[in-house]
């Protein structure tokens, strides 16, 4: 230890007072008393139910929602639940996590309740105050354990020459264990929220380009599949068109792959409302790497080219202290904006919370009738908002989302990328989380798909498929593990789900076993031997969504016929999903290999105007070499 630290230690030991004997005795007595009370009162009613309970998993996500009673909890909704699921699963492997045990009465302190009332009274709450609405200590513990778990999964897999010489990276990924096979006669309904994030693919790409296989937890198959543009027909009326197709599963002769895809309508771009963008830029010391702040500046330059004179841009930088770098400026004043961007320099610790508050304040100031406001958070992932505030931050973002300002997250660089937090923030902010590893990716996200990313056409989009037991014996949803919803959540408009922007596409694949084929699960000895039902339908598809700003949902319903045809787009999606499953080390693919996936993808490249599919095939080849 250096001299300075020794000095500090000496000074501390001199300064530390002796605990007051009377207080000590009182404190010890209080502790003893509470221990005794606890023994006698474990069954007493609990005044606060906001700590998720042990049963949450057994009872499904629904129970978790019931358990969240605070205001922030209600607005944080599904995305938060999905996030909770993500974080909790790894912990469960080591036995029950601390936070899911009942919260005894003695824990509840009056000041917390008081604060809740005060916080509700104040319309414009600070994040700190919101924190008190959540269970004070349970969530941080949850977060900590989940993070440390993820770290053990990931540690050492990505060597990142960081300027701050962090030896072990602190990346955390949102993931959940693979969806299991469902037997239609037992569970005929499958429900999930759409996901248009593509961050996982970019993370996989950056790992492979660095000569490493990505950590399994970083691979989210639906995000890989949804990374690619597909040739789906645009809707002739309404917000969405659905596109169904089916093919023989390449890796299993007994099953079929069913594709359910949504194509969002592309509103006339000319008619889009003016846009207020607040760039919230992480300028902490860790951003000082070529693939972080400099790439970020170049990316935002690209984005500026897409904006119009009536759009406004403001910049907030956050590091040790948050600060407004550029006041709201009309987008055509390019020189002013670029000048402010160029002046950003990395240094200091991250103070994400203050930055976020300031960005939202600016967005509110810029907001006028009929305009769209969005905070665009650019970071390498370390939010450093203080452990106790991480959940509160999400509540805060969800709150702002409900008041009309959305949040998107752009991730840069590797090493301490907190993918888990990025996902959660974007999901709560009705935005997308994208990971930008190179300029072409910035081009894809910020130029080609800008309209979709910034202008939602439908929110809380949920998909429910009811399979027909007369035709489908078993099914498995591929991917969307972090987006699963409980069956009853489908009709509950309070349950948040993913959003779809202008022109967005969502593709979901089910691997189904038709009745009559060899099933993976043995048939039950007891139970009905035959099932009545139409033999012409595989199932019934229901979509539920809200138009932006609307409170009530609309729905689209259609039967899924048994007569679906394969197409190139499905073949490519299947190849990519098998690539994802290979990277995750899934056991569901049998003998299927990377080589076969490469072959399948190559045969299904289609037009591939931008070369995305060709790039994916390159990545598969890299994975072969690295495995």
């Amino acid at each position: 230890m250096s001299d300075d630290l020794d000095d500090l230690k000496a000074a501390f030991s001199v300064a530390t007072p002796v605990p007051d004997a009377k207080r000590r005795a009182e404190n010890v007595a209080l502790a003893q008393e509470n221990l005794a009370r606890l023994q006698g009162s474990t069954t007493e009613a609990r005044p606060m139910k906001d700590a998720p309970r042990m049963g949450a998993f057994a009872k499904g996500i629904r129970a978790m929602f019931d358990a969240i009673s605070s205001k922030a909890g209600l607005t944080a909704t599904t995305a938060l639940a999905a996030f909770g699921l993500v974080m909790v699963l790894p912990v469960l492997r080591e036995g029950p996590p601390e936070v899911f045990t009942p919260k005894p009465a003695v824990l509840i302190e009056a000041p917390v309740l008081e604060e809740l009332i005060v916080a509700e009274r104040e319309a414009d709450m600070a994040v700190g105050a919101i924190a008190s609405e959540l269970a004070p200590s349970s969530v941080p513990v949850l977060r900590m354990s989940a993070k440390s778990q993820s770290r053990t999964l990931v540690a050492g897999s990505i060597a990142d020459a960081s300027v701050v010489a962090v030896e072990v990276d602190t990346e955390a990924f949102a993931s959940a264990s693979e969806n299991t096979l469902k037997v239609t006669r037992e569970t005929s309904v499958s429900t999930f929220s759409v996901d248009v994030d593509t961050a996982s693919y970019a993370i996989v790409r950056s790992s492979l380009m660095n000569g490493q296989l990505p950590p399994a937890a970083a691979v989210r198959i639906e995000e890989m599949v949804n990374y690619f543009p597909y040739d789906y027909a645009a809707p002739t009326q309404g917000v969405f068109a659905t596109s169904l197709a089916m093919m023989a599963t390449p890796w299993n002769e007994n099953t079929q792959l069913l594709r359910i895809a949504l194509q969002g309508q592309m509103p006339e771009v000319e008619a889009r409302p003016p846009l207020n963008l607040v760039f919230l830029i992480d300028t902490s010391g860790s951003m000082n790497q070529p693939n972080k702040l400099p790439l970020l500046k170049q990316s935002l330059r690209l984005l500026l080219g897409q904006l119009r004179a009536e759009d406004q841009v403001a910049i907030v930088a956050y590091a040790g202290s948050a600060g407004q770098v550029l006041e709201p400026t009309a987008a055509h004043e390019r020189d002013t904006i670029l000048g402010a961007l160029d002046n950003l320099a990395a240094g200091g610790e991250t103070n994400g919370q203050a930055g976020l508050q300031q960005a939202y304040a600016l967005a509110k100031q810029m907001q006028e009738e009929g305009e769209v406001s969005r905070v665009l958070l650019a970071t390498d992932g370390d939010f450093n908002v203080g452990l106790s505030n991480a959940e509160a931050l999400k509540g805060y973002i969800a709150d702002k989302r409900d008041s009309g300002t959305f949040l998107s997250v752009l991730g840069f660089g590797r090493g301490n990328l907190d993918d888990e937090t990025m996902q959660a923030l974007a999901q709560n902010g009705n935005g997308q989380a994208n990971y930008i590893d190179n300029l072409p990716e910035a081009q894809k996200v910020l130029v080609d798909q800008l309209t979709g990313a910034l202008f939602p056409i439908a929110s809380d989009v949920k998909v429910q498929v009811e399979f027909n037991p007369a035709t489908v014996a078993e099914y498995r949803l591929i991917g969307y593990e972090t987006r699963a919803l409980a069956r009853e959540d489908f009709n509950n408009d309070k349950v948040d789900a993913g959003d779809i922007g202008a022109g967005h596409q969502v593709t979901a694949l089910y691997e189904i076993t038709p009745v009559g084929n060899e099933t993976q699960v043995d048939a039950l000895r007891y139970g009905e031997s035959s099932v009545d039902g139409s033999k012409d339908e595989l199932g019934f598809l229901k979509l539920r969504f809200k138009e932006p700003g609307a409170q009530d949902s609309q729905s689209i319903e259609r039967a899924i016929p048994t007569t679906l045809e394969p197409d190139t787009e499905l073949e490519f999606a299947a190849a990519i999903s098998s690539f994802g499953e290979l990277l995750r080390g899934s056991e569901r693919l049998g003998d299927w290999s990377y080589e076969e996936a490469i072959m399948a993808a190559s045969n299904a490249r289609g037009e591939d105007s931008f070369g995305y599919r060709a790039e994916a095939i390159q990545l598969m080849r890299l994975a072969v070499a690295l495995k």
Partner: protein
Amino acid sequence: MIVMRMKTGDKELALAAKGGDAKAFSLLLERFYDRLFGLCFRLMGSHAEAEDLCQDICAALPAKLTRFEGGSAFSTWLYRVAVNAAHDRRRRAGTRAKAAQGWGDWEVNRTEAMREQAEAQDWLIRAVGMLSNDLRDTVALVMDDMNHREVGEVLGVSEGTVSWRMSEVKKHLKALKESEQ
């Protein structure tokens, strides 16, 4: 009985206390109170705040113990409880700025006997007062002779982050020293 228990490990005591064993709990408090108080003091920066934080922790400890699974060392677990309680207390105290006041409003008990140390303490106030909460939490734990891995475990960050934070602290201290010369 008691003599035997004195030799019992912290974890075993904690698990016994969790099961409602008042004697085990009492022994555990005896063992840890002063160390805990020292940590509370370093986290909060004032004698009064440290006493109050200790009270918060003592009040909640029996309930928290019901969730102690013995997966980590008891001290690590206890310190995590303490750091979380400190965060709660700071948050209740209001803004970040206000939380820093513990160290700003330092009430040094300057008796005659301590006169020679007064200068060192002034330095400590300046040194710790300028650290962010994260850095201060880290320092408070490192000063307890925990290694960086253990500190990381308590704070839920990686060992590398703790090392990096400590190098930041050293930088601050160095800058302070230079500014004083």
